[in-house]
């Protein structure tokens, strides 16, 4: 009877299993296979070259720049978005006139394509006539070339993405704030806790589940950053702000190096595993009890 039941449940799961295998495991497996070939992405001829693509990546200057930038994007955006999202959540959790409109305004950029937002934000950072430099000129400050170097462009992309997408983090924290029992906050107030102490010792520790969700989601999204870089800095100057996802795409589609792109993708996969496993382990060890 139990076996029959198990088989029935397995049949229910089968469509989902097939989708996961077909849409996740098969592409990953195929990319892994491609990484061992010299292939341009469309030719019927694929030449087996063993680990050459993996070795080549290690001596590729642009691979290391892209890896460095990807780590900056992943951790930088996660940190800035969480700090901003938390601050904004505290702000819009207050009762004031127009609160709903402000929440919607903060969230709005999340719903617009990153490619479009990158194009719009370009006009903020332009050296000549950009909005930021116009503001500086009001105070007689010399214009700044915000995207002069690869590293400065990386930070421009990082801050832009964080500011534009902090609305999603704000929503997560807002949901967390509204789940905190009011009795706990009232008790703290009755015991004479200041607003700052209340936040530091009661609210923030109790927001830990939201924080874990937010960190994990932002880390995953930031590792895959592509659209804003592509339209804001195009990965430049001279590849200085490229992320690994953009670099993989360029190698595959611009240079027709599908095998090499797959090799880099495998390194990327390896880096994500190394980073995400301990973080997940640490975060899942944290538990909150009301």
């Amino acid at each position: 009877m139990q076996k029959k039941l198990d088989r029935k449940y397995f049949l229910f799961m089968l469509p989902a299993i097939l989708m996961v295998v077909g849409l996740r495991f098969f592409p990953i497996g195929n990319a892994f296979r491609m990484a061992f070939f010299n292939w341009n992405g469309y030719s019927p001829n694929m030449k087996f070259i063993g680990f050459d693509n993996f070795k080549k990546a290690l001596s590729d200057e642009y691979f290391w720049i892209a890896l460095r930038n990807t780590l900056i994007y992943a951790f930088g955006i996660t940190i800035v978005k969480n700090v901003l999202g938390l601050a904004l959540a505290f702000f819009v959790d207050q009762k004031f006139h127009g609160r709903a409109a402000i929440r919607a305004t903060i969230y709005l950029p999340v719903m617009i394509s990153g490619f479009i937002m990158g194009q719009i934000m370009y006009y903020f950072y332009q050296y000549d006539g950009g909005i930021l430099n116009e503001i500086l000129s009001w105070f007689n400050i010399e214009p700044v070339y915000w995207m002069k170097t690869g590293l400065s462009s990386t930070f421009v992309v990082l801050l832009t993405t964080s500011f534009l997408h902090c609305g999603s983090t704000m929503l997560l924290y807002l949901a967390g704030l509204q789940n905190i029992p009011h009795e706990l906050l009232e008790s703290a107030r009755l015991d004479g806790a200041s607003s700052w102490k209340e936040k530091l010792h009661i609210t923030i520790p109790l927001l830990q589940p939201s924080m874990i969700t937010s960190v994990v989601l932002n880390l995953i999204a930031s590792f895959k950053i592509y659209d804003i870089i592509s339209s804001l800095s195009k990965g430049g100057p001279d590849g200085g702000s490229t992320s690994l996802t953009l670099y993989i795409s360029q190698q595959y589609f611009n240079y027709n190096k599908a095998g090499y792109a797959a090799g880099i993708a495998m390194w990327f996969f390896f880096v994500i595993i190394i980073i995400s496993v301990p973080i997940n382990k640490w975060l899942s060890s944290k538990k909150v009890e009301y």
Partner: protein
Amino acid sequence: MKKFLVCLLSVIMVFSLVACGGEEQNGSGSAQQTQEGGKPAQQGGATGNELAGVQLEVAVNYTGDSLTAFQQICSNFESKYGATIVIDNYGSDYSSTMINRMAANNLPDVFVTAGWSLRRYKSVSLDLSDQEYCKDYDESALGVIQDDDGKIYVNMISNGVNGNVVNLAVCEAAGVDPFAITTWDEFLDACAKIKAAGFTPIASNPDAGLTANLAGTFLTYEGEVADVGEQLKNGTWDWAEYIYLLKFYQKALMSEYFFKDARSINTNDMYERMAAGQAAFIISENTASIATLYSLNPKGNFTFAPFPASKAGGEEAVVSGEGDAFSIWKDSGNIEAAKIFLNFLATPEITLKLLDATSRVSCQKTVMAIDETPGTKALAAMKEKYAGHNIGYHNVWDREYLPSGMWAYMGTAANKLFADYTDSGLNKVIEFLKDGYDNVYTGE
């Protein structure tokens, strides 16, 4: 009852799917995926009957408005001749799909050559030299599509003409006569005057056009500082002479003739600054961009100029690439119908419809005479203003001299150049291009 309902709904669903899958598609309505090419279908067309029962497979790379316009043109053809046209629209996968189809010897009856009528598709294309439209080509087009033995394999409706774009108002304000410039040294002298007058001489941003399109004026055209065309074509060139082109840019960059933020400026911004009268030249631009500049500043005064020569007496150059160009598969089973289709496309009213949608420049004299688009007018004006100059019309340089796949390397090289234009930076650019060239040749 429930079982009956489930069975009934399943049967209805299956029949719906079969019905949807089996629906007849014709070319005028929608683009569809690959099918066997060159086989006549047993179905008729609409009102005409000259080609009734013939099905032409046409492969294109159009998207958006261009695709809609092309579908409408095909629909008109179907109505007039009774043939059916099946459009294979491969969009951005066009080149790779066509290469695969060529390898499988299974090409469509008619296909867009996308810049490669001679070097890639010549061996599989029908010689069209005897067609009427081939006698009507402008010289700027012949340099692109005519083989060394005088044969033409394509009906080219439009071409992309590339040279320098000039803001005449800025030149006038700076006291520069752009029509007197014949060499790149004179161009740099003009830049100095323009800068002294308070303008930025060059609006260009780093892209492959800068490192590829004008390279012939240093390396391969008649009377230039180097002559390495043969080595380039047989794959033995070591890129040493490319330093002449890089030194030109080095001078311009060191003299601050580009915008200070040139390395990160985007193309829209470049056009806006040019249209607003902040800069005098854009190096390596398509004539179609003149239309963009006039749309941004209708009161502006812009013109098109050839690339200057690298030394006095050398050949100035205008480079052209294939625009809307169609070939016929030499093994097609519908060669006569395909010829009728290409002649239909070459009629001025049909050509103008396509030009209107693609914003390209006409290249057949009959159409050029009635084409009022700014790009075409600019090319005509250039010929008039530069009448006394020694101008050569050439195929796009990388298509003529470099193996397929170098364009991306040329773009990266331009970015590297703008990021570091010291002597050691120039050497790095050369090393990078040499590696890319070797990789592309060996397929690694």
